[in-house]
């Protein structure tokens, strides 16, 4: 038992090596490998059906891989069952024991230990008390899950997982079932909690903002494969594939060709795909170069920190542009006006490989 001031658990690094998992004819994971350094907070980000939850469950031992192995600190743990792995798992719908109070839920993992490994009653009470403080629910300790709000249940589920001092904390869509506002608060709280507890943590999400805001490292998954692993900065600014580019934020897509190392938008070209984020597009009343596109504004939404403009190109493609309020005021743009749109920053993909 850790006691008193030092709450840092002994956490491990995780290595996933060539894991494949199929359910009938559906391939959930296709030869996936991933390194998760000790003490990091990693997001598995992807659309539903991308295999992220399956990967999490395989790490937890709730599911077994068809092939490949999972290592904790370099040791294969394939023969260890879920209960032997000392993994804290937070379920999407919390899976709180509804016939137990908050306190009993948190104490469960300690109370079910074999007698020789079980802490004394006083130690259990002290540990549960610490966790109740950590999740700020000490005065709700005697309540049942049904009497708590969604955010409170989420925190109880986290405390219950942390009570057993797991070597790894795994969270399945931890904020998926919560209101937008509570979700914001809990994200920050999870970040702080991780900094305080320091346990290696992996969470699954389909929400890019959540992954970008909370995680140290993001593994973007698609169709049973990992598309890219990197810091939020890297995956956002340097997406390794068109999927990642698309998945992380809005994007405009053009066909194009590359001449003398520069990209030219050309709707008849094939082979190259050009990606531009809405905020990387200039908008003006005059053409400023060969990549300036003639377009007509169709919709303007000025309510918000940035102004969102939708325009149709000459050939009828819809383009999204974001500009600052100041720029918008200076331009004095209106709906149904002819404009020129010019990309400042283009990402070029050829056969789904980033060229530049």
């Amino acid at each position: 038992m850790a006691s008193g001031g030092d709450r840092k658990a002994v956490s491990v690094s995780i290595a996933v090596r060539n894991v494949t998992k199929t359910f009938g004819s559906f391939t959930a994971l296709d030869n996936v490998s991933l390194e998760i350094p000790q003490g990091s907070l990693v997001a598995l980000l992807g659309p539903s059906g991308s295999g992220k939850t399956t990967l999490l469950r395989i790490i937890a031992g709730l599911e077994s891989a068809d092939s490949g192995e999972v290592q904790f600190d370099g040791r294969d743990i394939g023969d260890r069952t879920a209960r032997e792995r000392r993994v804290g798992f937070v379920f999407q719908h919390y899976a709180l024991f509804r016939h137990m109070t908050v306190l009993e839920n948190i104490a469960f993992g300690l109370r079910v230990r074999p007698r020789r490994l079980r802490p004394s009653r006083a130690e259990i009470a002290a540990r549960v008390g610490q966790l109740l403080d950590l999740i700020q629910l000490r005065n709700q300790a005697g309540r049942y899950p049904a009497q708590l709000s969604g955010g409170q249940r989420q925190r109880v589920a986290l405390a219950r997982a942390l009570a057993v001092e797991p070597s790894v904390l795994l969270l399945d869509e931890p904020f998926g079932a919560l209101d937008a506002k509570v979700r914001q608060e809990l994200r920050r709280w999870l970040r702080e909690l991780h900094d305080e507890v320091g346990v290696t943590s992996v969470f699954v999400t389909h929400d890019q903002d959540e992954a970008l805001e909370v995680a140290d490292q993001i593994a973007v998954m698609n169709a049973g494969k990992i598309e890219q692993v990197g810091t939020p900065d890297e995956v956002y600014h340097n997406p390794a594939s068109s999927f990642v580019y698309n998945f992380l934020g809005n994007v405009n897509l053009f066909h194009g060709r590359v001449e003398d190392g520069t990209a030219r938008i050309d709707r008849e070209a094939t082979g190259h795909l050009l990606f531009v984020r809405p905020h990387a597009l200039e908008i003006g009343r005059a053409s400023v170069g060969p990549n300036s596109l003639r377009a007509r504004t169709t919709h303007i939404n000025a309510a918000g920190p940035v102004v969102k403009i939708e325009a149709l190109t000459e050939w009828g493609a819809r383009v999204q542009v974001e500009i600052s309020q100041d720029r918008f005021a200076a331009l004095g743009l209106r709906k149904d006006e002819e404009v020129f749109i010019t990309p400042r920053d283009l990402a070029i993909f050829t056969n789904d490989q980033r060229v530049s």
Partner: protein
Amino acid sequence: MPLFAAGLRRKSIIPGFGLTLGFTVCYLSLIVLLPLAATFVETSKIGWHEFWRIVTGPRAVAAYGLSFGASLIAAGMNFFLGTLVAWVLVRYQFPFKRILDSLVDLPFALPTAVAGIALTTIYAPNGLFGRPLAALGIHVAFTRLGIVVALTFIGLPFVVRTVQPVLEDLDRELEEAAASLGATRWKTFTRVLYPAIAPAAITGFALAFARGVGEYGSVIFIAGNMPMRTEIAPLLIVTKLEEYDYSGATAIATLMLLISFVLLLGINMLQRWSGGRGERDAPEEPLLTPAMGLSG
């Protein structure tokens, strides 16, 4: 919001409320309430002292003891084995599972007299099970053990059918959570699963018990029907009637009725308890559980 919804329903535009409710209450009164009222009025004519003398007579007390004791043992067997059967039917795949699942309801559908003669034939000293058991010195037919066997048969579906839906609805994540927290399979069962299914299992137990206390048809063939030894309470009523002892029959019937009411009340409270806990809101009408076919 629920209040609002209830308010809307009260002012429903759907027709036929007066007609259907009126018919329901009239029919209920004629078929059920009037005869029951007759029984209580007839009992009141007997007088308190005479009533007390009849219902505390040694033969009557022996009959209740037998009815209650045998029902309790049979319901207890069904409590354990019914929970086991429900578990197996929900959790495992094996050949002929669907047929077996359907057959669980047989005691609801098979007339009690048919069950009675079949069980008697099987457990008679020369029967399929009776012969080997007799060789071991165990006599089932025409003994109290036979009554327990018949009541176990009659009560078999109750626990299975109350526990089964609860097990089916049980979130697999609860067990996974327990496992990831380090609980063994046995601890997961005793601490997480059993508390979740216990209200349903206890409700099933109570239903089986209530059914057993009033059961007649399946028991009288196998019981032997010896006064003081193997005479169940419903049989005592029939015997008194055949002796034209109307006050005797009425007094004992009234006592059984009162016991039925108490059991019904208890079962309703149990069902509220088992339906009213948990993360989902308590059902609006806890009594609206599907029919269990509880009857003899």
